[in-house]
């Protein structure tokens, strides 16, 4: 495994090929779970875990999976990891599990994970796939955490549940409601695409 390739694989999903703000994938969860930083953090850990291990597992199996049923196998493997996340949260972090509700289960349908399995894991070695899965998870996580940071701050005056803005601050209720997610995501994409990644 060439070192340059590892680095390239790792860096791509963080910037130029970011799943959220470049490929515009996984938007449903970006909108749904970003109104509290703590919940977002747990959610992104779950996605990171799933996308890393499902990429790795599917890459191990890639030479044996009959191509006609590859999507069934992908879904099965992804679902297995997601259910593991769900069970572990439920057993060890019941409060967070209660707050995230159905969203953990919905990681299964996150198109980023299936997308990486199809586009990367089936054509690359397990080691590279693992790195790709991990960095895709990180690329997803940091975007969500930035959005959640601003939504929680503007919407409730808090960061990670701790009050940081004084009583002079009027909460922007819209920020913690679904429309606030659209605004924040659009602003985020606008800034990144306008200032950081210039269109060719």
């Amino acid at each position: 495994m060439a070192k340059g390739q590892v680095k390239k694989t790792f860096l791509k999903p963080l910037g130029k090929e970011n799943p959220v703000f470049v490929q515009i994938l996984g938007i449903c969860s970006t909108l749904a779970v970003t109104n509290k930083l703590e919940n977002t953090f747990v959610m992104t850990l779950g996605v990171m875990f799933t996308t890393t291990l499902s990429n790795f597992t599917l890459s191990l199996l890639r030479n044996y999976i009959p191509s006609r049923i590859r999507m069934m196998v992908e879904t099965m493997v992804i679902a297995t990891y997601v259910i593991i996340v769900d069970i572990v949260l439920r057993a060890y972090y019941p409060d967070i599990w209660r707050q995230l509700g159905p969203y953990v289960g919905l990681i299964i349908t996150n198109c980023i994970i299936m997308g990486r399995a199809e586009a990367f894991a089936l054509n690359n070695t397990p080691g590279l796939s693992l790195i790709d899965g991990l960095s895709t998870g990180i690329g997803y996580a940091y975007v969500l955490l930035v959005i959640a940071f601003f939504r929680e701050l503007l919407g409730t005056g808090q960061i990670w549940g701790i009050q940081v803005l004084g009583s002079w601050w009027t909460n922007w209720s819209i920020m913690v409601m679904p429309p606030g997610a659209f605004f924040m995501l659009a602003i985020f994409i606008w800034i990144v695409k306008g200032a950081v990644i210039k269109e060719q």
Partner: protein
Amino acid sequence: MKKDSFFALRIFPLIFMAAVTIVCISVVTGIFLSTEDRVRSNEQLFLRKAVLAAAGISFPDDDFTEVERIFEERISVRNGWYAASLADGVQGFILPITGAGLWGPIEMMLGFSEDLDAMTGISILSHNETPGLGARIEEPWFLEQFRGKSGPFEMVQEGTAQADNEIDGITGATRTTVAVGEIVNRGVSSAPDILKRGE
């Protein structure tokens, strides 16, 4: 094995899928079974804390065995509700109730004093309200307001509650607040009937 033989096209995928399914299900089942007890005791602890909170009995939030001990000592389970022995020998009643919130059902525990004329507290078991807005019904300052007051309640603007039956609502979560008020009021009016059955 030829790439396009009958076996490769029709049979092998079936066997492969079955094998993957069996492996995946075994893993998930194993993890589920190994955490089952823990999950169950989490749920029981959560329920017991909710009952104690509604009865107005204080408990240490993070001490599992202490919560269990207090519950065993003070609460007895009846037919669909709970009886609590409050301070100085007075009895209290705790009833579960469910009603419509803004996005989904809200499950609560309502605590009443012996003659049903005042509330000892309320607690929330589950809800689907908006985090940061409606979900603030879980915050202690909101729930504490019901303690010692008697229904039917009227939900008023945040910071303006004065009369004995007025409760501060939550700004930005009017409909959730009103829903909670309605559920509690329904509980207040149906409590005598529920308590009659299964004494």
